[in-house]
């Protein structure tokens, strides 16, 4: 006796998805959701104010420190710190965006388990959610630079900008920032609710070894060596060199490890791009491995739907 024919209701091939187009759709949807969560809670003017107040204040803290110590003679260094703190807002939002997406979805909205079991790639969803915050960070960075040029006397000549170098360092640098963000998301998958400020704490640690607001030559040589392995150091140097070709180098100079090793007063554009590419690739590889490990461990220990309180 043969079994009656059953109509096929489900095509198993559908579980394979449609590859890149599905991923792109997931990314777009996640980015759109992230942007709405970031921006639709208030009117645009207030949103703009909130978004730029933090990076502008960070720059003002450093400018005040310079003013107190060096007064008017700090003009050259002022450009250095304004650019550094403007770019740093980009770093913070890039690193925090992905990690906060994990915490938001797990602890506040309690949606992480549903997002996780949806057909979308979890990492792609996280990247999409993080993209919105990176956008806000980019806006903060641009405004801080504008405030620096217009109100704080930072010398800037549009015709001196090396647009090619700026584009290359921005693309590779953005990739490195996102990779560090993925790393933090992996950490936050394992930790408790109070890890909200962990991304900022990590960014604070990196702040010391990125040449963001002071030249690396101020650091001991061993720490300078660590700083040279940090892609953010090269990204900052590249962006500074592209925007302010005559400005102070964070990597080279008297007393710097770079100058001691190479004999060159400061790295040139190609050197920066190669160093950024290599260090960025290493960080990206490490973050991918750590994220997959963290994801596996979170599934194994039931951390994806675990909420904590403190």
């Amino acid at each position: 006796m043969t079994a009656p024919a059953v109509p096929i209701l489900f095509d198993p091939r559908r579980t394979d998805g449609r590859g890149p187009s599905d991923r792109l759709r997931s990314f777009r949807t996640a980015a759109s959701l992230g942007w709405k969560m970031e921006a639709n809670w208030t009117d645009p003017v207030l949103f703009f104010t909130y978004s730029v107040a933090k990076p502008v204040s960070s720059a003002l803290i450093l400018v005040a420190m310079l003013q107190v110590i060096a007064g008017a003679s700090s003009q050259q260094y002022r450009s250095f710190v304004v650019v550094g703190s403007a770019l740093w807002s980009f770093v913070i939002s890039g690193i925090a965006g992905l990690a906060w997406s994990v915490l938001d979805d797990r602890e506040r909205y309690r949606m992480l388990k549903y997002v996780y079991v949806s057909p979308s790639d979890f990492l792609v969803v996280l990247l999409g959610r993080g993209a919105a915050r990176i956008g806000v960070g980019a806006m903060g960075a641009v405004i801080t630079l504008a405030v620096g040029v217009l109100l704080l006397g930072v010398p800037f000549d549009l015709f001196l900008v090396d647009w090619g170098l700026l584009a290359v360092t921005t693309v590779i640098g953005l990739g490195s920032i996102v990779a560090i963000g993925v790393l933090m998301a992996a950490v936050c998958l394992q930790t408790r609710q109070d890890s909200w400020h962990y991304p900022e704490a990590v960014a604070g640690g990196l702040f010391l070894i990125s040449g963001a607001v002071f030249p690396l030559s101020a650091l001991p040589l061993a720490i300078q060596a660590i700083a040279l392995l940090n892609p953010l150091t090269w990204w900052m140097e590249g962006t500074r060199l592209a925007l302010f070709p005559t400005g102070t180098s964070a990597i080279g100079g008297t007393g710097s490890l770079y100058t001691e090793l190479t004999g060159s007063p400061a790295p040139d554009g190609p050197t920066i791009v190669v160093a950024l590419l290599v260090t960025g690739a290493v960080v990206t590889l490490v973050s991918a491995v750590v994220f997959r490990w963290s994801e596996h461990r979170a599934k194994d220990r039931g951390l994806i739907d675990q909420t904590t309180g403190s």
Partner: protein
Amino acid sequence: MSVGRWVGLPSTDPRSAADWSRRRIITNNLRSVLGRAYPRTRGLARERSWILFEILLPFLTTSAFVFVYRALKAPPEYIGFAVLGGAMAAFWLNVVWMMAAQLYWERDQGNLELYFAAPMSFMSVLFGMALGGLVMSSTRAAAVLIIATVVYGVVFSVEQWGLLLFVFLLTLSAMYALGMVLASLFLAWGREAWHLSQLMEEPVYFVSGLSFPVAALGRLGVLAVATIPLATGLDAMRQLAFAGQGTTESVLSPTVEAGLLVVMTVVFLVVARFALSSLEERARRDGRLTMRWR
């Protein structure tokens, strides 16, 4: 006295059951304070990652400001200013994220209605949060202060230890009282809480002179000292911890600033109590305050 003594007593009617003695009310509220402080203090031992994220990394952030001063060849007391500011930032962050924004989180977690329904004063919950937060932040602040002092060779020059300690405690009380006020306001402002918390970091650090003498900001500095306890406390502590080290720029004398901190504490506590009563009334009347994700 154990609460079981009261729980075990049979009551003849609901009215008599609700009629608590003053002693029972006080004991109950003290237990509420300890109960709310417990998860924060106990959490210190349960989550080891905080050692890295809440001690080592904030120390590195503080170090960045130290190196800015070193790059500028600033007088040594400025490095001490940055270290002192880094330690006090731990308390401020705790006030902003774990006091001001806490009720907003509690609502999202579904705990807020339990707080409103529980037979205790809401102020006990806030005091408990403050107590637990103080213990949490003290470890971080002490670690930053001690490690940075040793590593960067900060030399304190204290002539009035008593006044310094008094000002420190007053600063904490005023900051946490402000946190209680903000907790109610953040809850009422709904989704702005998160963004307000962000707004209360760097902008407040700037106007409070976290890493430099606030007097350098002129009128803005005076306004900050008059309204933000972090600015007032830092200005006073800076004068007391680095007495006679060349940099005497300050807004007011430490004694006057101590008086200001007392006034701030009292005012903030009164406002917090009023704001909480209003919130509680609104929660009971409208039944919407405990709705999540608003």
